[in-house]
């Protein structure tokens, strides 16, 4: 036993030597200027990650000598442009932002993604540290063994609430899913001028927040290959979500997406707002909410706590005529150094090492609300599921039917049974078309 213990370091060294030699060789071979003089095009979603990273565009161009052309659009318009370009198999776009939880399966099946896994091992800068990414996010971006994109952030819906209003009303934040209604009812009585509870109501945007209710309730979108929205858990989730918005939400909530939720909360008009962790910098803009906000994950329900956790990723087009240079941008934009910079501007890092970086820790400690945000993000990373909508190729269309079912109950045009039955019928037809 002792002898075997003595030989263990030697054995380990022998095993690690080729890997270490590979890394040294890569370090010697890797050249940031290898594609100097080339031009690549990046199709960006005009969201906080892209707007922040593009502030450093000049640094990338100086480091690599590559010219970066940027096409920046709002999310829907970006997808529309991408669809046109990809259907034409055009090389107009080299790099694009993608949401694996939404379109990953669809784009992968269409063959639109370049598999980035070989690049991470064969053509990465020595400091890149691909293994430093959250394994869950890497797995969420991997389809049939191909890495479709490199994680850029970690995000999910969180419950932002006003500590001053809760204190004034003598309330504690809800401790269970069902408890949200009770707290909202008390808030409505105590602070009638405020919206007690706000969340997404716009049909295609709503599944992002609703999914967390469904999963915490113990429900699932599919069971035995069929739509499962009309399960007891599904019906309870629809009923709770719709009634919270109907009874305690803002007027016009049926058209609410992230934009309106952020505006409402930042203006101090809602007491509880269930919205994206990604909106944290925008919510805190102006500083009015820095002192009076706390952030927690959605309380657990009968099925436990299964928060929605997703992340944007950076992908290289299968039709790019310059995938090598495009990969240089991907690794620069998702490098530990860049992600550490972005973290200090409120972009939740998808790397554990960045999250524990002293600079980031110091930034978090400046404001208690930042610490709440980070703790909630850790809960997302630990417990999260990326299932938003149906796990099928036609995921975007499935989200529409979920949204319509909740909207029908919210607007009072259908009962829960009618709404979920209509949705199940449409969703089963969609699943059958796969």
């Amino acid at each position: 036993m002792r002898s075997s213990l003595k030989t263990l370091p030697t054995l380990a060294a022998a095993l690690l030597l080729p890997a270490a030699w590979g890394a040294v060789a890569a370090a010697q071979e890797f050249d940031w200027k290898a594609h100097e003089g080339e031009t690549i095009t990046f199709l960006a979603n005009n969201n906080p990650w892209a707007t922040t990273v593009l502030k450093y565009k000049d640094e990338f161009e100086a480091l690599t000598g590559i010219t970066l052309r940027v096409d920046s659009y709002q999310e829907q318009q970006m997808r529309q442009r991408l669809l046109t370009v990809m259907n034409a198999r055009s090389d107009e776009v080299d790099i694009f932002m993608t949401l694996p939880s939404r379109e990953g399966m669809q784009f992968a099946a269409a063959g639109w993604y370049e598999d980035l896994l070989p690049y991470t091992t064969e053509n990465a800068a020595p400091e890149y540290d691909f293994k430093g990414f959250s394994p869950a996010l890497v797995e969420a971006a991997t389809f049939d063994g191909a890495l479709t994109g490199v994680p850029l952030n970690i995000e999910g819906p969180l419950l932002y609430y006003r500590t001053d209003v809760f204190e004034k009303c003598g309330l504690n934040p809800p401790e269970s899913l069902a408890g949200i209604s009770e707290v909202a009812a008390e808030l409505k009585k105590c602070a009638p001028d405020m919206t007690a509870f706000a969340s997404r109501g716009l049909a295609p945007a709503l599944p992002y927040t609703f999914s967390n209710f469904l999963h915490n309730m113990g429900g699932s979108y599919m069971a035995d290959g069929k739509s499962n929205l009309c399960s007891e858990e599904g019906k309870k989730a629809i009923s709770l979500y719709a009634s919270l918005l109907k009874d305690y939400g803002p007027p016009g909530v049926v058209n609410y997406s992230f934009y309106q939720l952020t505006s409402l909360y930042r203006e101090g008009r809602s007491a509880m707002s269930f919205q994206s962790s990604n909106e944290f910098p925008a919510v805190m803009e102006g500083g009015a909410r820095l002192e009076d906000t706390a952030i927690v994950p959605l309380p657990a329900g009968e099925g436990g706590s299964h928060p929605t956790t997703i992340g944007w990723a950076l992908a290289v087009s299968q039709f790019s005529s310059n995938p090598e240079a495009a990969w240089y941008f991907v690794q620069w934009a998702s490098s530990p150094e860049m992600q550490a910079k972005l973290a200090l501007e409120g972009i939740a890092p998808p790397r554990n090492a960045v999250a524990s970086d002293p600079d980031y820790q110091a930034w978090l400690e400046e404001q208690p609300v930042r610490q709440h945000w980070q703790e909630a993000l850790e809960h997302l990373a630990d417990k999260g599921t990326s299932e938003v909508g149906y796990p099928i190729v036609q995921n975007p269309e499935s989200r529409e039917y979920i949204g319509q079912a909740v909207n029908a109950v919210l607007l009072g045009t259908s009962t829960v049974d009618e709404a979920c039955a209509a949705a199940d019928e449409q969703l089963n037809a969609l699943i059958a078309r796969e």
Partner: protein
Amino acid sequence: MDTSNSQRAQLAALAAPSVIFTVAMIAFPFCYTIWISFQAVSATGMMRFDGAANYARMVNDTQFWNGLWITFYLYALSLVLQLVCGTALALLLFRARRLPGIIRSLFISPFMLPPVVAGMMWLIILDPSLGAANYILTSLGLPPSNWLASPALVIPTLALVDTWQWTPYVALIVLGGLQSLPPSVYEAAEIDGASRTKTLLRITLPLLLPTLVTATVLRSVDLLRFFDLIYITTQGGPANASTTLNIYGFRTGFEFFQLGYAGALMITLSVMVLGVVLALNRLRNAVAW
């Protein structure tokens, strides 16, 4: 004669590149859309010829019929509002000829705004919680409204916003028509002692009819393919209450990747627009004076 032919040939040669470019830019997308409307396109982009299945699918598609109804409801409501308000504004501007140019320019400024900007602006104004519209209503002691968030109100609200933006355009067309009316008819009416109302109803409006039909044709094309404002403000909601055929086609194609069916929807809409325009053109020829 030879010189004239030669000049014509030179002019044709000069115009040919732009004509070819324009025709190609119109013809290619149209022909491609027709072709794709006969294909079954899977979510992964695979295509196979599927005959008229996409067109047959429309017959039993409640969303299609809903979209058709909403398209024509919005079209009719907006058109009537814009013709009435545009004519009234043109008459006002025609009578107030001494109005300073800057004020006249302000009247016509809304249609200079890109529809996306107008959409964002009205989205903020009409927000039931944060917007100015409900603040004004409640300040006047009136009940707040749900504007774009109520299935019953969303179409009238969109029609009102579009009317705000495009009434000045109609007014400009009508103003042009007013300025071309023969003064002798008005002099005769004045000598006969006709009142202002009678002059308006029996002389001005009948003489303006060809101009009004022209305005109707121009606005019809835009209103039947109404898109930007709806997409920016409601994305077809709430509960599909503002999903016109154009919005439905767009979402089917660009969000749900059913390009074949989206092509069929768009061809159907194009045929409808063409039919309406041809019918209105015949009407315009009939009322021309």
